[in-house]
């Protein structure tokens, strides 16, 4: 434990002065939240840890571009968001190409089998929620994950995504309504719930 607790900006300054070991303080400070974010976006905990590791390497490389203004969190979540979306797009491309070649590599990020999670990490209900979440349109999912799991305010979400606050409000509201319909359908014994993902 560092005491007194240095601010993110102070640690970044130290790393940039050549104390690269100090970067570990930032990793410890943010790794839980970054991994959680990526895991909820990809619905895959193992993949999330691997992506998060790359995210931190990218953060390190790009530290010189960070402008100290007490908003390190937005800086790193922007990187995490971009790398996660890149990963999801690569997955989609892989599926597209493998289908084009008549092969299914079975690496669909929206695959229908349950995501790889250890038994302790998931109950039946959790799987269901994870499953519903990953079927949301990407923008809705991104806004909702930042709100619900990271407890970001709409302004913080704006700093990460570049979207306007009204757009964020609409995305989150729509995401919740969509999930609400799923829950209602489940409770009434309905089977599958969502139409195919749009865009």
């Amino acid at each position: 434990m560092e005491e007194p607790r240095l601010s993110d900006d102070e640690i970044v300054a130290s790393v940039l002065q050549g104390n690269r070991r100090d970067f570990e303080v930032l990793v410890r400070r943010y790794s839980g939240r970054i991994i959680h974010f990526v895991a909820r976006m990809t619905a895959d905990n193992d993949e999330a840890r691997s992506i998060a590791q790359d995210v931190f390497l990218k953060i390190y490389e790009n530290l010189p571009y960070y402008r100290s203004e007490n908003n390190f969190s937005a800086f790193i979540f922007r990187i995490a968001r971009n790398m996660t979306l890149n990963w999801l797009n690569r997955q989609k491309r892989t599926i597209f190409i493998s289908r084009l070649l008549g092969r299914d590599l079975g690496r669909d990020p929206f695959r229908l089998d349950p995501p790889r999670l250890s038994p302790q990490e998931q109950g039946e209900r959790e799987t269901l929620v994870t499953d519903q979440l990953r079927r949301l349109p990407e923008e809705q999912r991104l806004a909702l994950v930042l709100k619900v799991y990271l407890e970001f305010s709409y302004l913080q979400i704006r700093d990460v995504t570049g979207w306007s606050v009204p757009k964020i409000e609409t995305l989150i509201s729509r995401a919740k309504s969509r999930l609400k319909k799923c829950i209602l359908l489940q409770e009434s014994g309905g089977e599958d719930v969502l139409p195919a993902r749009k865009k």
Partner: protein
Amino acid sequence: MNCQQIARMLSASQDGELTPDLELEVRQHLRGCAVCREEGNRLQQVVRRLRLVPPPAIDPFFPARVMAGLGTRPLAARRLAQAVAYALAFFLIFAAGFALQTGSGRRATAVPAAAATYSSVLLEPQDFGLLSVHDDTLGLFAEAGRE
């Protein structure tokens, strides 16, 4: 405000994102409208369900793995300097070759040696990640000023 307008604001209200006067309007409406109250309950239920999913288990070795992964990885500014050094070294080699071919022999032979030394001192040839400086992972270019 009617129920439809209230319904559009319920989510933001539960997220604590409404202005105080709008929040007041929503609350007053909810007190008198069972339909919107029920809708509000359902939305809250959605969030409660989402929060049933816990964060992935903590991996105590994660920070150490990241630090090991850093290796001798340079910061972006140094990468830019490396790019310039590469360009300079290649230019020198090319210029030297050209000078040799056009025949002004003895003086030019010193140049490739100098260029090779320069590049071996400054550069880490295994690191070809230069492009990543420009890959806009930061979204600096795309997002700047977009609203």
